[in-house]
């Protein structure tokens, strides 16, 4: 029985580790192949910079610290009011 257990452990390690490696090896192949097919035959149009994200960025201008703080405050108040309901 004890010998059996050790043998089972060895089996589990060999076949188990083998399977993990073979599986991930296959996954490397499949992934690489899939990426080639897609980038080769079904290329995506360059992702247009999203308009909504662009608006504030167009002037390279981030919302000021103060504006952000005010907004955070407003949101917090808004949430509190909702929670109270």
């Amino acid at each position, binding site marked *: 029985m004890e010998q059996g257990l*050790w043998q089972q*452990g*060895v089996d589990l390690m060999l076949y188990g580790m083998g399977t993990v490696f073979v599986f991930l090896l296959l*996954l490397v192949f499949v992934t690489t192949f899939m990426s080639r097919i897609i980038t080769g035959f079904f290329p995506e149009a360059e*992702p247009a910079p999203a308009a909504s994200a662009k608006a504030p960025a167009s002037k390279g201008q981030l919302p000021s610290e103060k504006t952000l703080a005010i907004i955070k405050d407003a949101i917090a108040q808004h949430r509190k009011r909702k929670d109270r309901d």
Partner: protein
Amino acid sequence: MENIVGLWQESGIAQITWGQSIMIVIGLLLLFLAIRKRFEPLLLVPIGFGGILANLPGAGLALSSVEVAIASGDVNLLRQMAALVGTESLVDLKNALSGAPVAIQQAAAQMAADAGYTDGMLHKFYTVAIASGVAPLVIFMGVGAMTDFGPLLANPRTLFLGAAAQFGIFATVLGAAGLSALGIMDYSIADAAAIGIIGGADGPTAIYVSSMLAPDLLGAIAVAAYSYMALVPLIQPPIMRALTSEAERKIEMVQLRHVSRREKIAFPLALLILVAIFLPDATPLLGMFCFGNLMRECGVVDRLTDTAQNALINITTIFLGLSVGSKLAADKFLDPKTLGILALGIVAFAIGTAMGVLMAKFMNAVSKQKINPLIGSAGVSAVPMAARVSNKLGLEANPHNFLLMHAMGPNVAGVIGSAVAAGVMITMVRAMGAA
């Protein structure tokens, strides 16, 4: 007057055992680690609290109705149950019942219900969340919905790092089997497999596997898995430094290419088909993972993705944690097996880390495109902690070396790797049991 005596006998203090006291202290310790030291608090707060609840004397929160009945010592009822199971000894009733056919167990539960006993609260949570297998699957769906496979797709070779790091799992299985073969411990092969999965550094996978192969060890295995995941920033760096040279740690990696949305949509489907072909027993876990990821990447079901990432995974985490805590009951946790689990678990992490780093060095030896071996350690999973450790050590060696995104590849590869390992172990252990 007898009422007041009854009240005292019902009170917890008259019933507490040493084991329960110790387990309550251990629960408090887990809470301390979670709250003060930020050890995976999302899981360890519910687990720690559940562990305390499970050990409150007299409450029986972690017991089934039959176990409550047995604990109550109602002799008439126990005699009936013993007759049902066909055993003579009242002492052995619990074991006899747990080995009995399901029909007998259900009849015993009916008897307990007739006598007014009900399942404890944590036992109910455990039955619904873990024994059914559902909670780890839902968590995996949520994790899938939060995972970005971009870095992996940009550099698929990092999958090898995720494969190598799983050696920690199987070395630990062998270690547990060896300890038992030597007579030091008493683990079955199913126990050994469940213990090994700690080395996968992935909480839900560990809970899923041990709920199937070794439910009695689930508490210790989950605690070990989450604790060591939290300790990754302490466990990994010495190993990584010992196995790499300063020059290796300085290696800068080329920026990752842009991965298109279509590749990201195709990946979970390709992974699912591969799993189905080679590892049917891994399909529940990886199927839900791929489903979550597909919802994320397809971009047309943002409502569902948002729920899978938030409300649903949070609800599930609460009950999963409390349910795991129910397995911290003293009679299950305070066992030499637990010490063995804790010892083997850290070995598993160390071996996994080392193998990831060594595999990276091996790949550098045979390939022109160099990779920084520090990202190898991220192959153990422990997302995103292990990748952050790689990044930190990279920056120490070279202040311009940002490895975080590169390490995310092996990091998520490790999640796949340990789920694959889970599937292969479940399949093989079942075959061994049937043989």
